[in-house]
């Protein structure tokens, strides 16, 4: 049988004073390439650039007919023409003003609903049931009815927008409120926060990551719904909006124009998500260490 090993007996020692560590850097700055790769927008714009290069190369090399799929170059030219000749800027403004109006009202309703939901168990049940009933219903499906109720115009559009904004905002806000840690809630009440002050000063900031997620989701749903609704509306409305611009361009067989419209939709969506919302997140939840 093998002998069982025992720890080796060796002398103790103690360093009376430690010299300065001089061999290696304690903190070494990263190289420029490493620093660039750590910047989020840089990586995302690289992906965007790659997509554009593939688009241009594919349409050129495969000689795709411009009426089916124009090149990126043609689309950019059409975009320029859209702005200078066909009043694309005005169409964007029409879409944006309706969207912003709907967004503002939607957030107000969503906030009120989540306040009611957090105030009592019954309110929470009401919101929960309403959301699970109405959230799966595509907003555009309400458009035909909205047109009967509110006529052809901004009111009908805002109504369907509200449907796509209210539920995700209210649901995410409520989920955020419910997941605020118990000690934090008790701290709020300990220092005398009650009712609306408790919600505004404690629950809202504590649930901000979740609230922002709801706002982002509401924005994305609303943007999609609006473009789709404008496509349906099209012929009758005057202002038309971005969706109408796409529809009209296709009707005139101006395919690069339609692509220019789509590109605008994508760019605006991209900018709002990656510039505006990202910025808000950087200044709040990321800075506070609540989200990375």
């Amino acid at each position, binding site marked *: 049988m093998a002998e069982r090993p025992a720890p080796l007996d060796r002398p103790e020692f103690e360093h009376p004073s430690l010299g300065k560590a001089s061999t290696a850097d304690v903190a070494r700055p990263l190289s420029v390439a490493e620093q660039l790769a750590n910047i989020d927008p840089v990586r995302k714009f690289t992906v965007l650039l790659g997509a554009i290069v593939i688009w241009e190369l594919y349409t050129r090399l495969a000689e795709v007919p411009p009426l089916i799929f124009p090149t990126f170059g043609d689309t950019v030219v059409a975009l320029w023409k859209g702005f200078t000749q066909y009043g694309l800027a005005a169409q964007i403004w029409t879409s944006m003003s309706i969207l912003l109006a709907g967004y503002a009202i939607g957030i107000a309703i969503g906030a009120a609903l989540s306040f009611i939901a957090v105030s009592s168990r019954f309110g929470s049940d009401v919101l929960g049931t309403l959301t699970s009933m109405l959230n799966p219903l595509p907003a555009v499906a309400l458009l035909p009815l909205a047109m009967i109720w509110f006529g052809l115009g901004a009111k009908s559009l805002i109504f369907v927008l509200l449907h796509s904004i209210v539920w995700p905002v209210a649901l995410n806000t409520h989920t955020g409120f419910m997941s605020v840690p118990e*000690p934090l809630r*008790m*701290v709020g009440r*300990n220092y*005398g926060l009650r009712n609306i002050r408790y919600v505004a000063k404690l629950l809202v900031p504590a649930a*901000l990551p979740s609230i922002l997620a709801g706002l982002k989701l509401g924005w994305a749903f609303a943007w999609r719904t609006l473009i789709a609704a404008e496509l349906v509306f099209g012929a009758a409305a005057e202002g038309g909006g971005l969706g109408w611009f796409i529809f009209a361009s296709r009707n005139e067989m101006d395919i690069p124009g339609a692509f220019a419209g789509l590109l605008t939709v994508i760019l605006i969506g991209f900018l709002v998500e990656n510039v505006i919302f990202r910025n808000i997140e950087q200044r709040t939840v990321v800075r506070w*260490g609540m989200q990375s």
Partner: protein
Amino acid sequence: MSQSAAGAAPAGAAQAVAPILEVQGVTLQYKTKEHLITATYRVGFSVYPADRFVLLGPSGCGKSTLLKGVAGFMKPVEGEMRLKGRRIVAPGPDRVMVFQEFDQLLPWKTVRQNITFALRNGGRCPRESDADEIAMSYIRKVKLTGFENTFPHMLSGGMKQRVAIARGMAMEPDILLMDEPFAALDALTRRQMQEELLGLWDDTRFTVLFVTHSIEEALLVGSRILVLSPHPGQVKAELNANQHSHANLGSPEFTALQTRIHDMLFADRVLEDEIARRG
């Protein structure tokens, strides 16, 4: 309603001073999804000014629930709790709670803002500039100078607890309620924090009600110890521990008291094991 609570108020000289906190025959219950749990059964004790009063017991003795009751987050089903003679009905800034969890700090406020938030909302100090001054003096007291504009997520666990203690002390409450504030810290930091807390106490002689499940911590931190038995929590004994500190940790007297409390709590354990074996 029975007022003959176990652990009656100390007799003699101490009676001349009015207690800050009186707990009499308090039974606390809370509901889980399936059960109604009786956390404490007819518990009574009195906390006097400058006491470091420790609630000690194993898990399930209702010590944290008791603290929540004193804080006003729970209503007793029997008995009553009085702070300076006034019946406790709701949470208030005259009893500030310090929790074990690190997420008791508001992550969206800096160290200083966490303290001024408490001062201003708790009604101790309506003016921002005054609140700032008080906050800075307490930040200095807990040795966090230089970190006043840091957000909590950048701090270590020990530093977070220091901020929470500074925030609680800055309120100058009638009584500071501490719910195992050092339990989530590593052993070295815990020891350091215990010493610092005692240093702070020596400075201002605040009154603190301290919950722990560590006998050693109870002896080190406490001046008086209420020993609670579990399921439901009942008063087993009330002992003096003012003579013990880090200085005599491990001395025969210290160890003797440690053993005495251990046996008090362990006696139940033996009985429970026996019941379990028979059942």
